[in-house]
């Protein structure tokens, strides 16, 4: 058996110094970043008033609350809760549909291949971004001031906050569409409207439908909490029962939300596959 040739370590070391002795800056970078992250973390714990005694007392309290939650029991208010759940689902469905209807035309304005000039596109995009930056709950508070307490304010809140998100997603879907079909329509003498209707829409509609279904699903979750500020749905009941410390009802309501979200998740998954086939949803 032939022995392997011994590598000449000294020569290699001279040739590739970085592989043997990484410069101090590179070696220190990761620990320094971790140390900085930890420092901010500890400052945060201190600044936000984390004290071990308070934390342990809270944990004890939490354990007690959890014990009180078992078993989940709606008491006599099951019909009321079911109605609230229906309200939540209605809010999610209506809010998302309205948002999608409004977002589609605006998203055309924000897409580079429809509206090339930056001067229109930029403000539209920033407008959508700032709508998205404001949380659904804040919009709910604003709408309560306008149309009063109740689920209608919730619908409008979901509509506005999703308008921003969907507008952005739609415009991205439109920008990703294939240009050739649009050119084909133009070559056969179609005007701008025909180009959008027959060249673009058939390509982007399945993508958009998938996104809307996904949003209905995630909005079921948002709609279940906007009641906390008074905009209808199951969140209203949940917040009330937490405030009066009816923990069995609280755990029942949380379970109801989980089941509803899982059901909607299942249905919209099936529908998405039916609409766009087995393609992955972006």
């Amino acid at each position, binding site marked *: 058996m032939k022995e392997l040739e011994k590598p000449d370590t000294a020569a290699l070391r001279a040739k590739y110094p970085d592989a043997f002795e990484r410069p101090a800056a590179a070696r220190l970078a990761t620990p320094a970043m971790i140390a900085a992250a930890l420092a901010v973390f500890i400052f945060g714990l201190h600044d936000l008033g*984390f004290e071990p005694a308070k934390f342990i007392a809270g944990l004890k309290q*939490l354990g007690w609350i959890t014990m009180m939650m078992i078993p989940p029991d709606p008491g006599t208010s099951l019909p009321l809760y079911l109605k609230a759940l229906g*309200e939540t689902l209605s809010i999610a*469905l209506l809010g998302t549909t309205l948002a999608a209807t409004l977002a589609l035309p605006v998203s055309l304005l924000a897409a580079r291949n429809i509206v090339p000039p930056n001067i229109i596109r930029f403000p539209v995009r920033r407008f959508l971004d*700032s709508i998205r930056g*404001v949380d659904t709950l804040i919009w709910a508070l604003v709408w309560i001031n306008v149309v009063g307490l109740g689920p*209608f304010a919730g619908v409008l809140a979901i509509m506005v906050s999703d308008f921003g998100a969907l507008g952005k997603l739609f415009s991205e879907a439109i920008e990703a569409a294939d240009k050739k079909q649009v050119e084909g329509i133009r070559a056969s003498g179609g005007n701008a409207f025909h180009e959008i209707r027959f060249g673009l829409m058939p390509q982007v509609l399945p993508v958009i439908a998938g996104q809307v279904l996904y949003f209905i699903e995630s909005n079921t*979750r948002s709609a279940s909490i906007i009641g906390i500020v008074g905009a*209808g749905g199951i969140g209203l009941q949940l917040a009330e029962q937490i405030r009066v410390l009816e923990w069995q009802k609280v755990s029942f309501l949380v379970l109801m939300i989980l089941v509803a979200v*899982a059901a909607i998740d299942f249905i919209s998954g099936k529908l998405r596959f039916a609409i766009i086939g087995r393609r992955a949803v972006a």
Partner: protein
Amino acid sequence: MTIAVSILPEQQLAALNAAYRQAVARKRLRLFAGAVVFIAALILAAIGAEVNLRTLFAYFGNFVSYFDRILTLDSGQRVWTDPGEWLWGWYKWGKLLGETLLISYVGTLIGAVCAFCLNFFAAENTSPAPWLRFTVRRLLEFARTVPGIVFALIFVMAFGLGPMAGVLAIAIHSTGALGKLFAEIVENADMKPVEGVRSTGASWLSCMRFAVLPQVSAGYVSYALLRFEINVRESSVMGFVGAGGIGQELVVAIRKFYYSDVSAILLMIVLTIFVIDITTGWLRARLFGKDARS
């Protein structure tokens, strides 16, 4: 030059036309049925949500005038004519925004560490036992599906009013969301290094440390940064239920109709979120190249 277009005989054409019309008619029928079901669901939902178009039209002016009012100072001038008066509470609000950022930072970090500890048990290829994987997955699912603000409501009852409840609520929600994403990264990791390390007689822990972790750590940081971005948004409303941050001020301003304060606080929130979005986007592009942005 003439172009020959072959035209089929009449009977053949008729059969093809009929087949085409039938196919289109079937498709249209299905579309129509789908539309009817959808519209019925919408009408049902409209009744369920007590949608009242008359209210909307009657009060829509309110919506517009609401924005008019929040952009007007007490003196009747537009807010931007007197920024000093408009942003009179900038120091207080800035401090609260800082608290909001800290809440989301601490919450995200705790959540990321918990998710990091749990995700190897939840991933299909690295989990030591099926029952463990099942339990951890259900746990993460629970933490992810219950909205953060519900946790906050309950924690406010347990830990008292203050940012601690908000931090813990964000931490739990982030654990659920990040745990799932982290586990997916681990499932996509290459298993050959694991085999190599195991063949040297290493324990499960060493396999994870020396074979899996180097492959996945970049993805972890990227997702954690993305989560931080989302959590900033979420912690801005934690104050609504008394869990610290700017939300408290905002809800007071909205409920008590301090109009110009509402717009000032909203402006500061939106600006902060812009800055955070841009910074984390830049950081992720810097750390992992453009393609890591997902």
